[in-house]
């Protein structure tokens, strides 16, 4: 039900912007000085567009991404209320 999210993201009727929460981790967070940020984005956009919106650059191949805590791809669509995360290759264990 995208209608619900649109009305959540915008406070007036006919709005075609959505609110996305963006999170960066580890070296990306340091590099862009962003930990967590809320952005307004036109509807019908992808993960790659979120990256462009916050950095002004195109998304490098080496970066991993997730939508709502599930791994995603640059062309994964985002919708109002989504949490989109970008991070470097993982190094746990």
């Amino acid at each position, binding site marked *: 039900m995208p209608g619900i999210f649109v009305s959540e993201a915008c406070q007036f009727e006919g709005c075609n912007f959505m609110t996305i929460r963006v999170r960066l981790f580890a*070296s990306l967070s340091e590099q862009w000085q962003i930990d967590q940020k809320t952005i307004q984005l036109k509807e019908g956009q992808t993960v790659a567009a979120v990256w462009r919106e916050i950095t002004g650059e195109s998304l490098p191949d080496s970066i991993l991404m997730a939508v709502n805590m*599930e791994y995603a791809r640059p062309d994964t669509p985002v919708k109002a209320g989504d949490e989109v995360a970008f991070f470097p290759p993982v*190094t746990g264990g």
Partner: protein
Amino acid sequence: MTVQLKPKPFDPFRLLLQYQESRLAPGSYGATASFIGTMRDFNQGDSVKRLFLEHYPGMTERELEKIIAEARQRWAFLEALVAHRVGDIFPGEPIVLVVVWSVHRGPAFDACRYIMEALKSRAPFWKKEKLPHKERWVSNDENLQN
């Protein structure tokens, strides 16, 4: 099946035994395969004083649970436990514990290794090393070897 993130140092064998006693009946399992990753005081030829382990709260747990679920689809085991440190870690301290209990040894060995390899390649954790004169984020290439 349990995933635990540990903000403070933990004793992996104590955790393993507590889990074993609470979840498994004596005589029901024949095989216990475990792996412990411990912080070394050296990496890539440098002395390492401290490690900071960042994670993605929520996604990290979810990804670890998915990994265990995948392993369960492939092998018949009774229980699995994954514990992982986050925050500041010092040399000699355990970073990760993976334990799998099964009736026969094959599934315990296979699932333990599978979970550990998948954790290394997919679970959202990032290591930052504190060297004597600088800090550096560990790269994935070298981490996959460790």
